[in-house]
C-alpha cells in the first residue's frame, strides 16, 4: 500500500469533551431538579401566581391607592373565612377564584382594608385602633389553593390575609394539596400573610367506636383499638391539650412568629356530625384551647352580631360594664363563612350591614339592612318583614346586625299580628341574651333573657292589647328602665335593666309552626326623642 499523507487521528479528544459536557449536563439536570424541587418560588404555580399578580396589579392600579373613605375608628371588625379557591363552580364548599376576585375588588372599591392577624389581635385587646371598614381575611387548612390563587389578588389590592395551618398536613412530604413548610415560610416572608394554628393533626376523622364509625378529634372520645375501649375523659383532655400545645410550639419554632390564635377545625362549630359520644367534648376543648391561645375562631351561625368586638376590658368606656362583659370578645371570635355562590355585591352588603348603625334608624324593608334570622324563617323585601316559625318550632326570632352598641333608645314597630305572642327585643347581645316586651292578647310582660335563661321581670293585664293588622308596639330602654309601649303609650315599666344592646323581633305560639307576624316598619330613636309619636 502506498504511503498516504493523511494520518489517522483518533476521536478520543472529542470523546473526552463529549463525556465531560454530557456528564455536566446530567449533573446540572439532576442536581438542578433536586434543588428546584425544594425551591417553592420556582414551582409552576408560583411562577403563574407571579405573572398573574403582575397582570392584576396592572389592571387594578386605579384602585391600589384608593383613599380610605372614613377616618373614624372601627368599633368592631368583621372576619371572613375561606378554605380554598377553586375553578370548579360546582364545588359548594369552596369559593371560585372569579367570585373571590370580584369580592375583594368590591371591598376595595368600597374602601375596605384588610388587616394582619397581629393588628387584629391588638385591636381586640384594645392595644391599637383601626380605621372603620377594616376586616380580617382568613383561610383555613393552608392548602396550596388557599395561597397560590389568593396571593396575586392580595398583592394587586394591597390586602393581607391569614392562613390557619394544620401542622401535620403541612409536614406531609411533597404534598400536592397542602403548603409545605418552605412555602409557608415564603408566604410569611411576602409580608402579605400571617399564620395561626388549625391544630396539629385534628382535622381528619378518627375511629370513635369498634365498628369504625369516625368521630371528631376535638369533640368525641376516640376508640383505642389496641385496648378495645373508648378513651377516658382525662385521656381525651390530655390528647387535646397535647395536640393544641404541640401545634402552637411547632409553628412558633418553625416559623419564628408568635401564635396566639387558633381556628377550631371541624366539629365544634361547623355542624359536622361526629360520633356524639361525649356531649362535653367541645366545651372541654374550648377550655383547653383558652388556656393555650388568646383567641379561638369559630364560624358565625346567625346567633351573633357579625362583627368581632374588642375584649370586655378594651370596649370603650361609654358602654355599661355589664354590656361590655356580655358583648366583649372573650376568647371566641366569630367569622363570616363566605359561601361559594356569593358575588362581590352580596359579600359587601353583608359587611356594610354589619357596621355599627347610628340612631335614629328607620327601616321600611325595601331591602335587608342586616336583619339576621336567629331561628325561624325571615323574608324581607317589597317593604315587608315576615317572620315565621318553621314547622317544628313554636317561635321565630330575628335581630338587627350593627345595632349592638345602641343604648337609651325607643324601638317602635308596626306589625300585622293575628295570633300568638309578639316580642319587641331590646338590649340584644346575641340571640340568647336580650330584654323583651312580650305582647299577648290582653297582656304585656317584660322579660330578661341571659344566655338562654329567661326571667319575667313584671307582667300586667292590658285589655287594649289586641290582634290587629297594624299593631303599634314598642320597647324603650334607658338607664335601668325597660318600658313597653302600645299605640305609643307606655303600658308597663321595669327598673331592672342590666345591660344595653341592639334590637330584634320574636314571635311565639304554643302551637308548633304557626307563630308569625309581618312588620311593615320600624323606627328606633334616641330615648329623649322617642316619647312622642312620629
Amino acid at each position, binding site marked *: *500500500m502506498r504511503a*498516504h*499523507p*493523511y*494520518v*489517522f*487521528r483518533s*476521536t478520543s*479528544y*472529542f*470523546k473526552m*469533551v*463529549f*463525556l465531560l*459536557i*454530557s456528564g455536566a*449536563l*446530567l449533573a*446540572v*439536570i*439532576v442536581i*438542578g*431538579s*433536586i*434543588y*428546584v*424541587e425544594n425551591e417553592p418560588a*420556582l*414551582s*409552576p404555580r408560583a411562577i403563574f401566581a407571579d405573572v398573574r399578580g403582575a397582570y392584576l396589579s396592572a389592571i387594578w392600579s386605579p384602585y391600589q391607592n384608593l383613599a380610605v373613605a372614613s377616618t373614624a375608628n372601627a368599633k368592631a371588625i368583621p372576619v371572613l373565612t375561606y378554605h380554598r379557591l377553586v375553578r370548579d363552580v360546582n364545588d359548594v364548599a369552596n369559593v371560585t377564584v372569579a367570585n373571590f376576585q370580584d369580592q375583594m375588588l368590591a371591598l376595595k372599591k368600597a374602601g375596605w382594608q384588610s388587616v394582619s392577624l397581629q393588628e387584629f389581635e391588638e385591636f381586640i385587646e384594645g392595644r391599637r385602633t383601626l380605621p372603620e371598614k377594616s376586616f380580617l381575611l382568613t383561610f383555613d387548612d393552608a392548602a396550596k389553593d388557599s395561597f397560590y390563587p389568593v396571593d396575586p389578588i392580595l398583592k394587586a389590592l394591597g390586602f393581607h390575609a391569614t392562613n390557619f395551618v394544620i401542622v401535620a398536613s403541612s409536614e406531609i412530604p*411533597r*404534598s*400536592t394539596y397542602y403548603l409545605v413548610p418552605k412555602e409557608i415560610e415564603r408566604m410569611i416572608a411576602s409580608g402579605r400573610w400571617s399564620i395561626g394554628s388549625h391544630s396539629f393533626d385534628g382535622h381528619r376523622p378518627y375511629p370513635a367506636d369498634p365498628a369504625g364509625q369516625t368521630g371528631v378529634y376535638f369533640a368525641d372520645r376516640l376508640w383505642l383499638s389496641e385496648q378495645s375501649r373508648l378513651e377516658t375523659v382525662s385521656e381525651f383532655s390530655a390528647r387535646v391539650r397535647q395536640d393544641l400545645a404541640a401545634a402552637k410550639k411547632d409553628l412558633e419554632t418553625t416559623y419564628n412568629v408568635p401564635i396566639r390564635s387558633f381556628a377550631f377545625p371541624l366539629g365544634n362549630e361547623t355542624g359536622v356530625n361526629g360520633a356524639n359520644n361525649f356531649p362535653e367534648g367541645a366545651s372541654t376543648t374550648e377550655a383547653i384551647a383558652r388556656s393555650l391561645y388568646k383567641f379561638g375562631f369559630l364560624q358565625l351561625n346567625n346567633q351573633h352580631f357579625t362583627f368581632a368586638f374588642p375584649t370586655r376590658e378594651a370596649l370603650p368606656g361609654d358602654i355599661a360594664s355589664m354590656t361590655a362583659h356580655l358583648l366583649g370578645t372573650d376568647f371566641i371570635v366569630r367569622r363570616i363563612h363566605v359561601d361559594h355562590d356569593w358575588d362581590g355585591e352580596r359579600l359587601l352588603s353583608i359587611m356594610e350591614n354589619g357596621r355599627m348603625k347610628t340612631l335614629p334608624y328607620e327601616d321600611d324593608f325595601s331591602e335587608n339592612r342586616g336583619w339576621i334570622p336567629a331561628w325561624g324563617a325571615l323574608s324581607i323585601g317589597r317593604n315587608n318583614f315576615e317572620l315565621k316559625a318553621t314547622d317544628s318550632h313554636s317561635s321565630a326570632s330575628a335581630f338587627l346586625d350593627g345595632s349592638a352598641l345602641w343604648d337609651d333608645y325607643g324601638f317602635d314597630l308596626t306589625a300585622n299580628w293575628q295570633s300568638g305572642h309578639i316580642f319587641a327585643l331590646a338590649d340584644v347581645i346575641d340571640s340568647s341574651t336580650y330584654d323583651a316586651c312580650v305582647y299577648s292578647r290582653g297582656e304585656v310582660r317584660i322579660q330578661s333573657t341571659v344566655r338562654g335563661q329567661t326571667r319575667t321581670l313584671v307582667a300586667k293585664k292590658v285589655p287594649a292589647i289586641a290582634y290587629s293588622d297594624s299593631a303599634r308596639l314598642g320597647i324603650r330602654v334607658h338607664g335601668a328602665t325597660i318600658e313597653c309601649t302600645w299605640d305609643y303609650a307606655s303600658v308597663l315599666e321595669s327598673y331592672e335593666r342590666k345591660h344595653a344592646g341592639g334590637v330584634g323581633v320574636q314571635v311565639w305560639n304554643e302551637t308548633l309552626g304557626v307563630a308569625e307576624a309581618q312588620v311593615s316598619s320600624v323606627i328606633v330613636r334616641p330615648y329623649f326623642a322617642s316619647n312622642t309619636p312620629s
Partner: protein
Amino acid sequence: MKVLEAVNSWRRNTVVVGNDLWHADSNHLTQQQLEHRRARNIGYQALLFAAAFLVLLAIILIKSQTTTASDVDGVLLVYTFFVTIFQLSRLVASLFYTASYERALSAHEAHQEPFTPAISFVIPAYNEEKEIARTIRNCYLSHYPPEKTEVIVINDASTDGTRDEIVKMKQLYPQLVFVDWVTNKGKRHGMAEGFRRASGELVIQLDSDSRIDPRDIHNVVEPFRNPRVGAVSYHTEPVNADANILTRMQAAYYFLSFRILKAAESTFRMVFCCSGCASAYRREMILPLLDDWLKETFLGLPVTWGDDRSITNRVIQLGYETMYSSSVRAYTIVPTTLKQFIKQQIRWKKGWFVNSIFASKFIIKRDPFVAFTYFFPLMIVTIMTPVMASRAFIYTPLVHGFSSTLYYMLGVFAVAALFLIFYRLYARENPYYPYVFLWACLNMIVLSYMLFVALVTIQNRGWGTRETHTKPQPTA
C-alpha cells in the same frame, strides 16, 4: 401535483444552473458588509445560546415538577430523565461534528495535491420513468473529469417506461453502463451489481430519484483522502418539501436526522446508516462483503429493507470509519401521502431493528465508547419510547392522574425546543424549523408506535422503494 412540479423544476434549475441562493450571494459583498453580517451572526448565535439556556432551565423545572408531584409515575420519571439526557448528549456530540470532520482530514504536512479518484455512480431503478432520466443526466453534469466519471444504471425489470427512458439516455451518453434485467431481483441485488460492475475507486450509490448537486462533487470525494474512511453519507434534503404539510415536516425531520443526529454519529466517525439516497463507498472494501450481504437473512427469510444500513454496518464491522458530510447537498423525493409515509417509516424501523441486532454482536469490541454512550442507549430509547408513550397516555392517567402525562408532554416539547435552537444554529436559512414541534408531536402520538407494527409484520418482506404497493417478491 402542480405545486410539486413547479417546485421540482425550480430546484432542478437552481441545481443545474448553479444559482446557489445562500452561498453565491456572499461573493459580491463588501468587506464592511461581510463584517456587519459576521457581527449580526455572532449576536444571533448569542441569542440562540441564551434561548438554549432558558430551555434547559425549563427542562429542569419540568423535571423537578415531575419528581415533586406525589401522583407521579416513578418508571416514567426514570425514563424521562434517561431519554432527556440521551437527547441532550446527541446535541452535544453534534457540536463537535465540524471539528471532528476537519481533524479526520488533516494531513501530516501542507499537502494539497488534487485528489480525483475515479468515481462510479450506481443507480438501481425500479418503475421510475419520471425521474430516472434526470437522475442520470445530473450525474454527467458533475464538475469532475469526465474520463474519471462512470454512471451505472440497473433496470430491475421495471414495468413502466423506465427502460425506454434509460435507452434514450444511453443514446445521449453512450458511455452509460446499462444493466437491464428481465426478472425483478430487488434493490439490494441492483446495488451489488453496481458495486461489481463499477470501475471507479469510489462507488456513489444513488436512489433512482435522488441526486447530488453537481458542484459539490469534489466534496463527495474529499473525505476519502483519509484511508481509514470507508463510507460517507451526504446531507440530503427533500426536493418536494413544499408539497404539503407532511413533506414540510419531513424536511424538518431530514434536517434533524442528518445535520444533528448523523453529524453527532460522525463526531465519533461511526455513522450507522449511510443513507441509500446519497452515499459513497470504497469499492475495494465492499467487494468481499457482497456475497455475505446478499445472503443476509432474518428469522429464516431474506432481508429486503435497510440495505443501506446493513452495508454500512458491515463497513463498520471491518474497522473502517464512516462519516457524514454536510458540505455536499443531495436531494431526494419524500412521500407525499400519509399512507406512503407510514409505510416508509415501518420499513425503516424494520431495517433499524434487524441491523441493530446485527451490530450489537460486534459493536462492543469495535468501539465500546460508542456502544455504551450511543448504540445501546439508542436501542433502549427506541424500544422504550412507544412503551412509555402508551404508559404516559393510557396507563398513567388511569392510575395516577394526568400530571405525569402533562409533564411528559411538556418534557417532549422542551427537548424539541432545544433541538430547534440547534437547528437554527446550524442552518438559519432552512425554513422548515417550526415543523420540528409537529414532528415531535407526531412521533409521540403516532410514529413511535410504528415500531410495534414493524415488529409484528417483520416477516412480511417487500421490495421497497417509494410508491410501490404491489411489488412482486424478489426472486433472490
